[in-house]
Every structure is written in C-alpha cells, then in structure tokens.
C-alpha cells in the first residue's frame, strides 16, 4: 500500500515535471523570438555611449562574435544549448554572468518575499477567520471593505505612501537602497539589512492579505454551515473549541494552497516594491534589464521567474497531496 502511494506521488511529480519542461521550452522560444524582434540594437545596448567610436567593421565583428549574423533558429539553438549547460550568458549592464547576478539577487528577493509571504498569509488568515466568525457584524463589514479596497490599490502607490510616512515624515527608516550607500558589502550588518527590508515587506504584506482573507472568510462560512459542524454543535461543542477542532483544519489547507499558488502575484509585488525602495532584488533587475535592453539578463529572469511560479504551484499541489487525508490515504476498502 505504501509503495503504491509513493509511486502515485512519484508519477504525479513526474507528470508535472514533463508539463513544466514543455511549457518552459515554449516560453524560452517565445521570449527569445520576442527579444530578437525588439527595436533595441543589442550592440548599441552593449557599447552604449561609445557607439560613435565604433566603426561599421568593428560592429560587424562584434555581431559575428555573438552570432548575430546567423538565422534566428540557429541563434536560438546555440543560446538554448548554452542555457541547458547552465550558461545564461553575460549581462550587458553588470558585465557579469547572468546566473551569478540572478543567484545573488534572488537571495535578496527571497528574504523579502518569504517574509511578506508569511506575514500576509498569517495576518490574512486571521482576518478571514475573524470576519467569518463575526459574519454580518461591523467587524466583518470592515474587513471585507478593507480587502476589496486593497485589491484596487496600486502596489507602488502603497509603497510610496509607506515611504512618505515612515521614511520621510517619521524618519525611522532610510529612504532607499538595499544596503546603506557607500558601505562595503562586508561591513553591512544584519541590522542594516533588516532595516532596509521592513518597508518593502510591509508594502507587499498590506496588499497581500486581501486574497487569503476573503478566501478564508468564505471557506470558513461554508464550513460553519456544514453538516459536520451542525453535528459537532449537537454534541455540545461550541465557540473556540468548535473552531479549533473542526474549523481550523478544514480552512487552513485551502489557505496554504492558495498562498503557494499566489507566487506569481508575489513576484509582481516584489518587482514594484523593490523599484520603490531601490531594493537590489530580482524585480529591480528585471526592470533595469527591460529599460536598458539587457537581453541576456531579461531572458534569464523570465526563465527564472517561471521556475519560481512553477515551484509555487507544485508546492500547492503537494501540500494537498501530503496534508489532505482524502488524497494521502489509499482507500482501505
């Protein structure tokens, strides 16, 4: 029985992996075609202001060196095989391997996103539970109103407001930069890092609660109206004990799944928050790459963010497979 269970899960992951691989190849191809057709001249983007000093002959040499004179398919294949070997090329802005930059930036973003993910998940869940338990009261209406309003709030504007209040007016935090300007990275202390982290995390979290809260509220209302809660009440359970025994476990699982499935929005939030707070993460790198025509970096980031979203979806599915007994236990009869 356990063997078949393990095999079932293995098969599931394998199928997901295959699907992911096909999607990833397609995304690589489409993205590659898109950036190749962009009006930005990669050579000019690389050389920048020195363009006037470069003659047509030199230009051709560079083009040849990069393989820019080859047909698009050939270019794609050579780029693709390099990617498979783990070589994402060299970033034009940073003049360093793209994989190195992504690795470094990802660590920064990961801290930011994990903190915001946890905070928004926990607070959103509590808000949803409170709203459902107090359904129809002013507390419920407030929470609902807040969530609907948040869903219409531009993330970057929320970032600006927080910046105005906490950094400019109160002066509690520096106005930007992931690390203090002019300090060598070895000298950056943990405290500095955390200090620069708080405002972006706050921005993403304030907006991130809406989804989980509304979903949890609806789910808990359904659970409270269910037959099994009615029966639990008939057996004398009530109040917090009732919620703890029957509400929590039936509501937490979908909430966790929802949070994992929201990695795409989390990434989007991080892009905007990082831009507002000049936080050196993946999001800021994406914007820079887009603005300054850094093709290798942009392609690398597209691939990476796709994998990131996929991991979130996989975790969402896995959490169901591992936590829900209906999926976990093989029917014994």
């Amino acid at each position: 029985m356990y063997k078949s269970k393990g095999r079932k899960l293995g098969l599931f992951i394998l199928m997901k992996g295959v699907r992911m691989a096909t999607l990833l190849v397609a995304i690589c191809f489409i993205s590659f075609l898109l950036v190749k057709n962009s009006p930005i001249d990669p050579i000019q983007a690389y050389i920048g202001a020195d363009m006037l000093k470069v003659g047509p002959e030199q230009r051709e040499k560079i083009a040849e060196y990069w393989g820019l004179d080859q047909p698009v398919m050939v270019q794609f294949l050579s780029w693709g095989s390099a990617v498979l070997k783990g070589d994402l090329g060299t970033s034009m802005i940073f003049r360093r391997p793209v994989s190195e930059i992504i690795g470094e930036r990802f660590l920064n973003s990961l801290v930011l996103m994990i903190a915001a993910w946890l905070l928004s998940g926990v607070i959103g869940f509590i808000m949803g539970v409170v709203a459902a338990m107090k359904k129809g009261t002013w507390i419920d209406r407030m929470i609902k109103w807040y969530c609907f309003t948040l869903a219409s709030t531009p993330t970057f504007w929320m970032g600006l407001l927080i910046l105005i209040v906490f950094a400019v007016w109160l002066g509690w935090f520096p106005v930007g930069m992931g690390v203090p300007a002019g300090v060598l990275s070895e000298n950056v202390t943990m405290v500095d890092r955390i200090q620069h982290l708080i405002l972006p995390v706050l921005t993403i979290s304030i907006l991130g609660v809406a989804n989980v809260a509304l979903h949890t509220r609806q789910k808990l209302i359904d659970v409270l109206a269910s037959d099994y809660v009615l029966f639990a009440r008939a057996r004398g359970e009530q109040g917090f004990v009732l919620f703890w025994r029957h509400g929590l476990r039936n509501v937490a699982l979908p909430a966790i799944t929802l949070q994992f499935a929201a990695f795409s929005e989390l990434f989007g939030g991080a892009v905007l928050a990082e831009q507002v707070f000049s936080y050196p993460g993946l999001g800021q790198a994406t914007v820079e790459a887009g603005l300054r025509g850094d093709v290798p970096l942009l392609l690398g980031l597209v691939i990476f963010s796709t994998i990131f979203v996929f991991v979130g979806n996989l975790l969402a599915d896995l959490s169901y497979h591992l936590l829900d007994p209906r999926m976990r236990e093989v029917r014994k009869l």
Partner: protein
Amino acid sequence: MIPSLKNANKRSPLNLKQRTLFKILISIVFLAIVILGGVLLDEGRIVTNLNERNSAPSLKHLFGTDWLGRDMFTRTVMGLSLSIGVGLIGAIGSTLIALFLGMAAATMGKMADRLISWIIDLFLSVPHLVTLILIAFTLGGGFKGIVIGLTLTHWPSLARVIRAEVMQVRSAEFVQVSQKMGKSRWWIALHHILPHIAPQLLIGFMLLFPHVILHEAAVTFLGLGLSPHEPAIGIILSESMKYLSSGMWWLAFFPGLCLLIVVRTFDQIGENLRVLMTRTHD
C-alpha cells in the same frame, strides 16, 4: 426559547435590484465626469508656471502644484482619463481574445481544447508583470507596447469561464434540438451561445477593467509603458519619487488615491452587475 436574531436587513424604499441599478448608475456617472474632465479641462493649467511652484494643496490648487507649477488636480484628472482610455482598449481586446479562445476551446474539438488550455497555462506560468515587461520591451515601450501587452495578458481567466459556460449551453436541450434540425454551427453560436454567455462576458469585461488599469499604471510607473510626455498616473507617481524626500507628499498622495477610487468604482460596477445578473437568473 431561541431569540430571533433577524432584522439585520433594514427596510428601504428601494428593493435590492433598484438599489443595485442605482449604484451602477452613480458609478457610471462618476466615471463619465472623470473622462469628460480629462477632455475638457483647460490645458493652460498644466503649462509651466514658475510663480506657483511646489505649493501645497489649497483652494486654488486642490491637489497642490509640482516643481514646474503645474496644477496637480488637472494633471491627475487628465491622467485618469488617459488610464481609463488605455484600460478600455486593453480590456476590450482581452475580452475579445477570451471570447474567441473560450468558444474555440468549447466547440472545436478535443485537440483545440487541449491546445488552448496549454496556451492558458503558458500565460499563467510567467509572472504577469514580467510578461508585460517582456512585451513592452519587445515593442519598444510606448502606447502601442503597453496596449498590446495589456491585451495579450488579461484574457486567460475569462477564457476559462467562457469555455465552461459554452460547454454548459452546448449540452442544453434546445441547442441539441437545433443541431438535429440541421442548423449551422454559426447559426447556433450566434442565436443560442452568444446570448447565453453575454452576461458572463459583460461581467468578465468589467472585472478585467480594474486589473488592466492597475497594470498599465504599474508598467508605466516602472518606465516601460506610456512615454514621459503623456500625463499618465504612472508617470506622475514615478516623477514624484524624486521630490518625496523633500516633503512634497501631495505629488504622490492624490493621484494615487484617485486612481484607487476609479479602479474601485469599476470593480464595484462589475460586482453589482454580477449581483444583478445572478439574481435575475434564479
């Protein structure tokens, strides 16, 4: 015995349907005023006026003025008007794509269905904002880039809804009968399927709208959308960042708040429409 906990529902002279219609009407009037304002407001108020630079909100300048002495209220209303316009094009485009692909997935056989669901997965597997940046980059930014980007990225969820709806009508008896009577595919699509999904399409369109506007503002804010010469909200907010540290909060506060209100209004219309349509359904 058990006390009655009812009577939360206050009596009002209008019933739910009328109230919902009323709310929708008010919202539409509000949005119309904003759009008209954007068109009719005097361009002269946003020319450089160095005598009234950096002034805080006052009766003369409700939202204050910027570092060039331009009236922020006028800029904001014009920006909103522009945002709604761009949002409208993007939302219509997305809805059309959703309609086409949703119908195709439901009516053109298994292969088409699989292919379309694969395309939907494709679009959902890259973070939304990254897709927008990529498309804007490819098209060199600007109005064209942002509009095409918005159109291409907002359809997947609505396409799924429409696919499910079409599947449902297709199996309905009256469609089956029409099929047996030898009516053509197009006839059935036009006479049976389209009228049935029209409400869903309208609601879906209204609920897309706020997302489109928010994404337009976000991409423009990042510098990959509308050009800096346009009076867009994203541009206003991104410019304001330079002046925030000198305490000019009004540059960011009011334009963003107004954007929030406009987006929320659209969302409300969509939600109210949903209430109205589901009520009349049963």
